[in-house]
């Protein structure tokens, strides 16, 4: 319970999106970031699912943090995560079946996301419920934002379309929608993100 108590909720959200962005800064969970980002719609729903799971897991872990015996905390976290992922999985199958057809496999993989377990262990298990919720929102949004950037970029440049609507009638750089190109896309955007962040993001925090 160190300095975290003094950090405002807004700071927690900003931290997740910028300073500790799952994809661009921590380079975690890259597998789904590449697999489901060939189209903006898929990337968006995948991101939403992650926001939901991250928030719910943080809330649950934080609420139960005094009750959970430290020796079995990791298995318990895994149970909590897989429970919430199963719920999202069932809900998406029922509510957005056409998206689920494309991202279903990766929704189930959220169970194994390093970022989700990491936040449960590093933040939610040591902090109160409300900050944990905002930390979850921040980390989840960071992932969602990154996925939106990557999938917009790949859909426009790789597939020549946006949200399924054809833009140029051609595919400018088809390699970007292939798995190998996914790494290039993430790498390029990561470089851009970090360049911008280094230039503008740290303003006022000089030292």
């Amino acid at each position, binding site marked *: 319970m160190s300095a975290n108590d003094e950090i405002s909720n807004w700071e927690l959200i900003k931290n997740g999106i910028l300073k500790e962005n799952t994809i661009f800064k921590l380079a975690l969970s890259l597998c789904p970031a590449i697999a489901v980002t060939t189209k903006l719609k898929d990337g968006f729903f995948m991101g939403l699912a992650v926001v939901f799971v991250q928030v719910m897991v943080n809330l649950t872990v934080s609420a139960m943090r005094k009750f959970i015996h430290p020796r*079995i905390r990791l298995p*318990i976290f895994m*149970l909590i995560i897989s429970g919430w992922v199963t719920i999202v999985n069932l809900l998406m199958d029922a509510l957005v079946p056409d998206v689920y057809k494309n991202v279903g496999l990766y929704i189930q993989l959220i169970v194994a996301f390093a970022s989700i377990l990491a936040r449960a262990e590093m933040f939610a298990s040591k902090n109160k419920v409300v900050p944990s919720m905002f930390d979850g929102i921040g980390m989840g949004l960071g992932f969602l934002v990154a996925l939106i950037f990557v999938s917009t970029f790949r859909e426009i440049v790789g597939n020549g379309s946006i949200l399924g609507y054809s833009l140029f009638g051609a595919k400018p750089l088809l390699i970007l929608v292939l798995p190998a190109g996914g790494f290039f896309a993430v790498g390029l955007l990561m470089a851009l993100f970090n360049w911008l962040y280094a230039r503008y993001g740290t303003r006022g925090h000089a030292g």
Partner: protein
Amino acid sequence: MTGKDIVKIMLNLIVIYVIGGLILAIVHANTSPVRYQNKINFENQALKSLLPDSEHMEIEKLGDWKIHDKAAKYWVAKKDGSAVAYIVQSFGKGYSSYINTLIAVDKDFKVVKVKILDQKETPGLGDVIEEDDFTNRLIGKDVEHLKVLKTETTDFVQAVTGSTVSSRAVTDDAVRNGVAFIRDKMKEGGPGNVRK
């Protein structure tokens, strides 16, 4: 580890399993009818979308068949009691998946429309076979002309650049076998005389 720890750990696990199990059971019970209905709606819509003027037709399941060891179905579309078209489900072995297709044929067993129900081909390359741009190339073809060529052609089916394997899987495998099957099946029973 003391006895107290053991009791606490047991309690932890019991509570998590019971609460988690309950929540999952509730969600499952509430979503499973919706998911089941989605699948049925999806199939019905797919069948309807294959035929023009399908509101005035009755689509009736005729039976099951097997291709690539996968169970597929076939239907007849009737207008005023007489068969006007057939629909057959078929599978083609693609680059990275079996491509699940629905094919509508007219009474001369020429393709009316093809719809890809499910495929896991390479995103961005192989999956363009799902688009009308490709499936329209199959329209009007009979068994003899359901053949993919890499050159420009209208008599046969032109492959999608970069997706030859997937184009072939749909055309030469799924659709041609499907059409051949339904043709042979229906001819056994005589023209227009559907065997039940």
